[in-house]
């Protein structure tokens, strides 16, 4: 058997059966192993520092708080670690918050969970899963930005190509199809999406700095 690097995965999910289902789906993939399962924010944070996993799968609605707190801890981790949101449906508003907190994307748990191992591996390889709904929401953030919208509304600046790609994603096109349509490789499409996530995250960081400056913390 070939030497394979095994990536450890932490699951933070309060519903027992779903957590187990995720565990078995992930362990079907050779390169992945589940190091622990936590069922609330507190446990999730403890396990995170105890096991220092490569990937954290987080449910957002947890009994003692929001999974976003775990995502923030992952963003601040001093080892390579990435968070993925597991969501039953799209639930865009909460997912956008999670993305802004630093999540690399999300996986749906409503359908078959067979593909979840593949999703996790694609994140480790640098991809960022995105759904049409999230793309639509990001586009709204761009256009509301140009209109100089209200105080609370966050905004991001996108290049024309990035906007083009988000538009196609929002209409349900897959990366491969978008690459063919625009005459670029699937990987390049993925890079663009990564950049968009990056901007979202950077944007939330600069907002935090601005807020801190206003409050006199910096």
């Amino acid at each position, binding site marked *: 058997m070939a030497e394979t690097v095994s990536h450890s995965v932490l699951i933070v999910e309060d519903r*027992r059966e779903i957590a187990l289902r995720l565990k078995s789906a992930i362990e079907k993939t050779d390169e992945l192993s589940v190091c622990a399962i936590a069922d609330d924010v507190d446990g999730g944070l403890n396990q995170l520092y105890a096991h220092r996993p490569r990937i954290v799968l987080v449910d957002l609605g947890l009994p003692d708080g929001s999974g976003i707190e775990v995502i923030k801890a992952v963003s601040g981790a001093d080892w390579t670690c990435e968070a993925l949101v597991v969501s039953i*449906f799209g639930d865009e508003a909460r997912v956008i918050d999670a993305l802004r907190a630093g999540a690399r994307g999300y996986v749906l748990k409503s359908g078959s969970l067979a593909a979840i191992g593949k999703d996790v591996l694609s994140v480790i390889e640098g991809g960022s899963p995105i759904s*049409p709904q999230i793309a639509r929401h990001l586009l709204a953030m761009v256009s509301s930005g140009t209109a100089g919208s209200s105080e609370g509304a966050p905004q991001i600046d996108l290049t024309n190509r990035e906007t083009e790609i988000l538009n196609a994603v929002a209409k349900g096109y897959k990366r491969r199809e978008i690459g063919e349509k625009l005459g670029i490789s699937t990987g390049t499409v993925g890079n663009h999406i990564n950049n968009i996530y990056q901007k979202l995250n950077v944007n939330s960081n600069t907002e935090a700095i601005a807020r801190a400056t206003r409050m006199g913390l910096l």
Partner: protein
Amino acid sequence: MQNSRTLLAVLAWIAAIAGLIWALNIGAIEPIDPAVMLTAGQVCETPGCAQPRDIELPHHFPARHAAGHETRHLRFDMSLPKIPDSLQALYLPSYADEVFVSVNGAQVYGNELTDRQPARMWNIPVLATVPQSLLQPGQNRIEITLYGYPQEGLVLEPFHFGEAQLLTPHYNWRFITSAGMARFNLGFMTIAGIMLGIIWFARRSEPIYALLATSCGFACIICIHFGFDTSAIGYRWSTLIWQVSVSIYVYLIFRFCNHYIGEGLKPLETVSLVLIIAELAAGSLVPAPYLFDTLLLFKLHPAILSFLVLAVLLGNRSKIDKPDLRIFFFFLSMASAMGVYELYITAVVDPGRNQHIFQFMPLAMLCVCLWLVISRFMLSLRSYEELTGTLKQTVAAKTEELRLTYEKLGQAERLKAINNERQRIMLDLHDGIGGQLVNTLAYMQNNEKGDAVIKTALEDALRDLSLMLDSLETDASISTLLGMLRTRLETLLAEHALEFDWRIDDEPELPHPGPSQNLNLLRIVQESITNIIKHAEASIITIASDRNSITISDNGKGFDPRPDGRRHHGHGLAGMRRRAGSIGADFDLSSDPGGTTIRLVWR
């Protein structure tokens, strides 16, 4: 060229008016029947009248360059057949500067002559009553002593002796048109000056009122000179003050006109100002005997400047409203002509005219001021009315706008409330029912329990819930909802070796957009896809859309869509048709052995 022609026209015009005033011979001294007009008399070198010399009135003693004052003694003999019954009087219309009158040796007018400055009474006629007791039948002697300033020359015009009752109205008229007019205008100018000052105080941004108020002030000084004895402050200063006042007055009017027209004649204004300062300096420093002539020379400045005022007005007539121009030009040229006339009778030794009329000048100026204030007032009244009109319209428009904004705001509030409530319900469905369904499915899979029917039912319920949540979430974009549907069904399709051919281009827009319409549309599309998965034995599902339609087609084996054909209860065609009707779309189905196509079309 143009300017010099204008100036020439102005000169001609002024000459015409001044000539007219001359021709009118205002204040000419005519005999008053039956009073006696005395014109023949004798002038004595001394009070004792050692060497009398015959003279004819009017008599102008030539002006001399000498300081101080001089005295002239004159005597007139008049024979009376008898002592009159009524009170008699002497009426002296014009003389200079001060006069003392005695009849048969008794003083009837003027105080004892002492060594003091002559009073400046040159513009004030004299009516001296003569008691009958002083008169005698036969020869009577009237002695008149003139007391004045040698530089301006002493003057006595013909005078009258007669019944006091007869002479009084003549005296009154003469007084009113000379010193009286000056005093009357002094009052007018004071009031006008104060009012203009108040207007200026209220409207600091309009210096035109300050100019006019100041010019009124200087006009007052001129009025004082023409209406009162000013000898108390000394000959030099009283003369200097009133003469310079004339220069400053014209200078201010010049500035007023320039300002009114918007003409920038700064250099000329500066020259004028320098001349005024020079006049002041010369008036203060020149030796006393030459004071009057020197100042008279400086009067060329206001005279020429007043012509320039008129020339500027005329040259810029296109910039001024017609009525304004007429009023300004008429009254200012009257003032200018009066000035020229005054200058002439003052400068010439025996001018042939004895009545000063310069005291009328402030009246002309007053008309200009009044007209200006009134026309400005009318103008602002008119623009105020216009403004009120526009304001009313604006207020009405803004009120309507405000009402609409409130309405929209109310709608937005309601929408926000609905949205918040929707979010809450969605979150409950998501975390509650959704979580339970997924958990149950996971339990069945983990433990390999439960039968296929329950599993399928749970999966269908989960898909339907997803559809509901999606349609609530992104109510604006059908293409995104279709995209989400694709994401959910992709794994299912893969399990059945099926692929999407995705052709979503233009954003479909339903006739009545909204979450429930979107949900109905998605249900039709989802049901079409599951039908294909279950029955069509196809390998490719094509989803295409444009603004007014969505098409779902496959490359499967097809079926007979007629109601009496093969029964297809599982296809739920009737339900799909009903749903299509509820969103205002036509449901179009065609099928042949090469595949099936469902088309939803709306307008």
